[in-house]
């Protein structure tokens, strides 16, 4: 950890101005930034503490939309009765993320900025090559320990998995991230590595996430987040699925369906192929399982993560069938 200067921003404007400084990084809950500073990945020259800005932690939920302030704590949002009622997948994704201690500190805005858990990314002293940290230096993960690495959205530059849960649910329900001057679909806010693995988010110097907005929908109301992992708690997903379902009045034909995957892709991964295959179909286990396989189109494994290709469709299918049973 090297020395940095510390600024406390009292307003969004002040935060934006400071965030435009070279080498500046925002501090909210600190659960990602301090961790990455300790392992030598984050080396900010200026840390801008935005955690004291008033009015950025509100959670405002109606049937039409949820507006969640960037500084709202993960545990606070997860426990919000209206979020639980109108956006159960969002609440469930938050509850299954990290640990109780981390959820009490971490903010939802900061959560969107969470970096990958790729062990090579996190250990610059031992693995200097990492295109995310040092563009053009190469990828240490390819050919290494890849059990947790992505099978979707990968490139020759990077196979690091996007680790989060919340954003998977947000992507499923067309949520937007409010950057002040701009609003972006969360799905577009996250960038697959391509040849520019260092660019993980569509965010510009001087931009600050102020809120997340999630449109209400019947599918969001009937939704779930299923996270599969070896350890019951405090582990990143081997594969996870955020699924929302709206059925016709017959109680079995799919009117609307949303599916997104976590733990298997380089960004929160919406799988429209599965949605398209099931829209208008009657829910049936064989059909759901077959459609879920479409999620793996284009999947590429690197040996130890091969199991994810078999696992992820099963997670999707289980989540859809579970929602179908609650008809």
């Amino acid at each position, binding site marked *: *950890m*090297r*020395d940095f200067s510390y600024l406390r921003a009292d307003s969004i404007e002040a935060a934006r101005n400071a965030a435009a400084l070279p080498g500046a990084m925002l501090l909210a809950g600190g659960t990602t930034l301090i961790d990455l500073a300790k392992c*030598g990945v984050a080396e900010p020259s200026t840390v801008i503490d935005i955690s004291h800005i008033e009015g950025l932690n509100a959670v405002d939920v109606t049937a039409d939309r949820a507006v969640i302030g960037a500084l709202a704590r993960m545990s606070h949002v997860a426990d919000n009765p209206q979020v639980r009622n109108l956006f159960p997948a969002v609440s469930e994704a938050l509850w299954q993320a990290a*640990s109780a201690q981390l959820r009490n500190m971490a903010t939802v805005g900061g959560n969107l900025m969470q970096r990958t*858990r790729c*062990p*090579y990314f996190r*250990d610059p*002293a*031992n*693995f200097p090559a990492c295109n995310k940290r040092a563009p053009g230096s190469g990828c240490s993960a390819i*050919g*290494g*320990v890849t*059990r947790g690495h992505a099978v979707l959205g990968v490139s020759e530059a990077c196979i690091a998995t996007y680790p989060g849960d919340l954003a998977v649910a947000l992507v499923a329900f067309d949520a937007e991230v409010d950057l002040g001057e701009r609003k972006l679909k969360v799905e577009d806010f996250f960038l697959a590595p391509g040849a520019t693995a260092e660019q993980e988010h569509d965010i510009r110097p001087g931009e600050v996430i102020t809120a997340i907005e999630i449109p209400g929908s019947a599918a969001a109301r009937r939704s779930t987040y299923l996270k*599969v*992992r*070896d*350890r*019951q*708690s*405090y*582990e990143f997903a*081997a594969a996870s699925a955020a699924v929302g379902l709206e059925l016709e009045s017959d109680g079995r034909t799919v009117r609307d369906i949303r599916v997104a995957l976590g733990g298997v892709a380089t960004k929160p991964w919406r799988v429209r192929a599965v949605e398209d295959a099931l829209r208008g179909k009657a829910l049936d286990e064989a059909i759901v399982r077959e459609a879920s396989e479409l999620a793996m189109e284009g999947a590429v494994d690197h040996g130890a993560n*091969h*199991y994810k290709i*078999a*696992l992820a469709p*099963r*997670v999707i*299918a*289980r989540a859809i069938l579970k929602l179908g049973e609650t008809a």
Partner: protein
Amino acid sequence: MTVHDMKHAASDSARLEAVGGRLSRVDGPAKITGAAKYALEQQLEGLTHAVLVGATIAAGKVSAIDSRAAETAPGVLAVLTPDTIMELKGASDWLGNPSPQPTYNPLAREVTYSGQHIAAVVAETFEQAVAAAALVKVWYDETPAIVDLSDGKAGDGIPIDAMTKEWGDAEAAFAAAPVRICAAYNTPREFQAAMEPHGLIARWEGDALTIWEPSQWLDGMARTYAEWFGVPFENVRLVSPYIGGGFGSKALALAHSAVAAAAAKMLGRPVKLVLNRPQNFTSYGGRAATRQTVAIGADRDGRIQSIVHRGVNETAVDGMWVEPLGSVTSIMYATPNFSSKQNVVRVNTVVPGAKRAPGENPSAFGIECAIDELAHELGIDPLEMRLINYAEQDPHAKKAWSTRQLREAFAAGAEAFGWAKRSPQPRSMRDGRQLIGWGMAAGTYPVRRAHGEAVVKLLADGSVVVESSSIDMGQGTYTILAQTAAETLGVPVENVSVKLGDSHFARAGVTGGSRLAGVMTGAVYKAAGQALDELIGLALSDPRSPFQKLQANTLQVRDGRIASSRGEGPELSIAEFMAAVGREQIEAKGDTLPASTTAEERYANYTTIAKSIPHTEGDWSRHSWCAHFVEVRVDEDFGTVRVSRVVSALDSGRLYNPKLAESQWKGGIIMGIGQALLEEGIVDRRHGRIVNGNFADYMLPTNADIPDIQTISVGIPDPHSSALGGKGVGELAIVGIAPAIANAVFHATGKRVRDLPITLEKLI
């Protein structure tokens, strides 16, 4: 040191404070409130901070180090490299064998594993030391590394003849047996993963060295420091009042310890050095990775005719660790023919070390899975299989068991678990998509014995102080020694304060191998008995004593009050009596050694393990025993395994405090669940480096992974094992949990996973 508050809740035991009572941990309130001061929390005037620089290659030479940038960084006091650190003398090993090298350099020029310490930066603040350590530039001449047992360059290794155990003609009998199974079982590199990191504070005052360091063995580590620096043993004081988990890892002074102590000497200032979390995975050894093959030949009625066992464990290029893989294999079942042999293979790792039940733990994984495979092959219930082959005596030592309540453990565990309702066929029990499996396994751990000393002081105010250089790493030494002293002296336990963790106290050997409770309750029992004898002798003979005129042969002390056994004459509290006879204190030192023991033998007894008493000494073979019954739920789509029920019946002999023994058993079972399902040090094969050296990626069970655990004590006092009849507790319960879970997973899924951990990709 803290005098603990004796706060204990209502209990089902009438005499909470007596040996065998369920007294809550006396150090509990201090730990919960943060009042307990751990070694590394010591605040010292002028303290400096050292941070280590680790090798980024697994094998080769350090060709150059450029430390100029670090030396001129803010706050930096010194940069130590292999060339600039002071020369230390070679120290003898834990058996007392002298070092083959006359000198010792804790910073390596020749790198034999990734993460090995090659430099250290000392600065005024921790942050300055961290920043400067990142500026140290190192160049290497790298050579190819042998990364693990499966490396093509690893070879078959070195045969360890001392591990060979053979009787009958095992190979021929196996070949002739009508039913045979043979399979290979692997366990990965595992780590102790204690919450409290390794580290120390070292301070020199002239030739006297004080070390504050979490320690499972003050006397042994003090000896190492004394030898490194060529000072008398008495000049080294080690202080370790509490230990935040050791599990075998904190018994030795290690390279980082030497660096800190040397830096303190060179700078003339106290130095604090704490390993960061990744360094805790590379600076000392965890459990060695192991490979075993177990072949069992049996009759059709399930009677074993032969066991052929071969084992391999990894060790370091420049250090030897033998994980005794035939230890359970050779004693658990009766067999007329037996052969066990073991090799070790050198790989580029830090030398492996002790982790809870070294040897017995992986050994049981092999034999207890193999027995389950044999039972399945024969269509015999796994519990019945174990009873058919019950060993009525130690099959290897050919001696009677001192006590072996294993049959009772099988019966009590099976009854409480409902084992009789098990459907024998794999995949025959389910709940929706959850496949349910019931598995079982047995476990054992030898009774390791040694000697210890204790001082018991009766003070003028009637309070009692017990002192020992033994330690409490959570297992309950503070508590059971208070109970032992209270019961022996006849005083309320609230009046007893136990002081541990200072090498200037009465001596003790290593806290490892589940020996401490048996050793130290014996020593305190003796010391307290001597103090009581002196008290009563004084009361009967001192002219100032109100009891003198009674002309009694003896007196009794109950609830801290002295009275005649016949109920006549005066009754005084100990404080009143001490005032009456004008005594400040009565002090007695007790030990468990024969009176003829020389000073040299005593030193060897406390500072090496060479004087440990074999568990098969004399006429008896002494072991703890257990039987685990486990239910798992395996998701048939996802391959995830959750343990939903554990019932374990255990024979640790007499329990000094059942509440604390149950906690230790449960701790072992929880650790075993982690071993079975989660734990694995994952090595990048190109770099020979552990890549999951942190608590997010090295998986340990969370509360959510642990079901209710029922433990049942089936032990009886074992007079051959310890002074008060107890056998080992701490390591027993982790032995057999992993095979019980693997057997349950087979029962659930029909899939036999022989490589730990049983992660989801092995089942989908």
